[in-house]
């Protein structure tokens, strides 16, 4: 949260308290503002929050521990499919949300360890290639495990997944309080917001801890990290599994929110999109992941929305399909970003200690 506060332009450094409140108010009011432009925008915001969780989780692996992971979406898939298996008519199992969520997280963590073990000795490009392959393997499994025994229902995916039910309160139904009705999209928004806030809190705690420092040490110089007694193997596995856990939780939420999962949601492009969010925002800091996810989740939708009217206005007809234009403009945004701000939107130095908590500051030696 502190990093996020400091990232607020102008106000963040001058008045952190005001910036803090600004973030909270904006976060709470965002769906109401979005509603003015139409309901679909609230949905876009819901997805932006899911991407935020993914970016936060991937940031643990890539930003903190320095392990380039191009198959991160696989953990999202594991979470989503776990939810789909255990809470849908597909197997006829309908476990409650609170039972499935930890399972989804645990399976994703196990998948993280399963990926971590074989790649312990790999670094840089080689690591990227293997993780990329891992992501594809999971997707292809999901795609093909419908024969001879139908487990995943193949490319058709799994339908009619149970919605999130919190203590008997179904988030997918419109809430009525007297004359006042609250659409399910809002309910999901606030629930996801809570999840993102929780993730930020936990990840911040990890960052400023002996584990966060061990990750940063390993990232900056593996040999020196070994020489001060850091168990590289354990720390790498921990980074993979914890990063995967956030992906798994986001996957569960995605499955329940969407009500439908299929392998095509977990393509390589999605992994790259999440990685782009982390890099775009500023690697290794929480605020970067949050802002990167927000901007890159909203930008394509905004572009899609304004591409058609602008073209009609200029040329009286639509020359370029918004979908094509979207990728084009997004790539352009990335290129500009790399040229103008190669360290990301928010290049804040991540902190791994609380020096201000020292009881006294000693005078410097002459």
């Amino acid at each position, binding site marked *: 949260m502190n990093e996020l506060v400091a990232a607020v332009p102008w106000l963040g450094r001058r008045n952190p308290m005001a910036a803090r409140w600004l973030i909270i108010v904006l976060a709470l009011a965002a769906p109401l503002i979005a509603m003015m432009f139409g309901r679909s925008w609230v949905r876009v915001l819901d997805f932006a929050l899911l991407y935020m969780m993914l970016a936060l989780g991937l940031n643990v692996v890539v930003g903190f521990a320095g392990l380039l992971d191009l198959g991160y979406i696989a953990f999202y898939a594991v979470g989503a499919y776990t939810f789909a298996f255990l809470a849908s008519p597909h197997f006829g199992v309908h476990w409650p949300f609170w039972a499935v969520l930890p399972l989804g997280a645990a399976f994703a963590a196990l998948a993280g360890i399963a990926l971590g073990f074989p790649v312990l000795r790999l670094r840089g490009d080689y690591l990227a290639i293997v993780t990329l392959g891992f992501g594809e393997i999971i997707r292809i499994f999901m795609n093909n495990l419908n024969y001879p025994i139908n487990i995943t229902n193949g490319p058709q995916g799994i339908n009619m997944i149970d919605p999130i039910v919190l203590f008997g309160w179904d988030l997918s139904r419109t809430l009525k309080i007297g004359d006042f009705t609250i659409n399910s999209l809002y309910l999901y928004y606030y629930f996801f917001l809570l999840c993102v806030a929780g993730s930020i809190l*936990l990840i911040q*705690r*990890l960052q*400023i*801890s*002996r*584990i966060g*420092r*061990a990750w*940063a*040490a390993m*990232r*900056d*110089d593996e*040999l*020196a*990290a*070994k*020489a*001060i*007694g*850091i*168990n*590289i193997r354990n720390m790498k596995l*921990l980074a993979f599994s*914890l990063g995967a856990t956030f992906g798994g939780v986001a996957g569960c939420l995605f499955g329940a929110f969407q009500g439908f999962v299929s392998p095509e949601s977990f393509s390589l492009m999605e992994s790259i999109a999440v990685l782009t969010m982390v890099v775009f925002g500023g690697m*290794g800091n929480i605020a970067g992941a949050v802002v990167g996810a927000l901007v890159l989740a909203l930008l394509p939708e905004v572009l899609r929305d304004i591409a058609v009217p602008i073209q009609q206005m200029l040329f009286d007809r639509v020359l370029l399909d918004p979908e094509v234009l979207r990728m084009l403009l997004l790539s352009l945004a990335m290129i500009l970003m790399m040229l103008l701000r190669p360290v990301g939107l928010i290049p804040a*130095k*991540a*902190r*791994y*200690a*609380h*020096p201000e*908590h*020292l*009881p006294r500051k*000693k005078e*410097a*030696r002459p």
Partner: protein
Amino acid sequence: MITLLEARGIGKRFGGLTALDDVSLTINKGEVYGLIGPNGAGKTTLFNVLTGAYMPDGGEFVFNGSQLPTGKPHKVVGRGIARTFQNIRLFRELTALENVMAGHHIRTRAGIWGILTQSRFTREEERLTTERAYELLDYVGIAHLAEAVSKNLSYGDQRRLEIARALATEPHLLALDEPAAGMNATETAQLRRLIDQIRHDGVTVLLIEHDVKLVMGLCDRVAVLDFGRKIAEDVPSVVQRDPKVIEAYLGGGHKHVA
């Protein structure tokens, strides 16, 4: 004299090259032990074998009365051996304080659940780690740079920071790999005082150094390596006059060192 570290017949080959050939030496508790020799004599290789970075091809180390594990750096550090590097290896993106705190990793116990829930034990340990790191920065004389990112520190300060980080692992034996390399006379004099202080505070020091004046002035005993063999081991004044040592450094035919 109590023996702290004993190397017994350490051997290490890289392909056809014998980097260490049956090297045995004894380091006593509380001394500064110098390891010198011409370039390529095997000094750093001995360091790497000792600290677990390389597996030895033969021999063993006995430390504090029991055998050291080989090839497991984190276990060696846990037993109480810390090292610095010839070419400084700091965690570049971390501040000086964070570097030293990272060095304390092996002496802290907070687990993942403790950290996620911020248990009282975790918070207390974190506070102690911060305090201890600050004290160590003060000890090596760079407390005023605690919040500077380490890659921006001056060369001499980086050397000191690396020593502080090594001390944060709470070693019995501190192995310094050419700590004075690239330092000017003032910095070397400061380093010398620091090493004296460290020894005075009860940490045994193993020192690889090229600066002969520093070694002779600081070390209680010196071993000389040449082509992977130990050719001398004694107090500095004796080693200095050893004809084999003179020959190793200056080549045959010389009778005197100026």
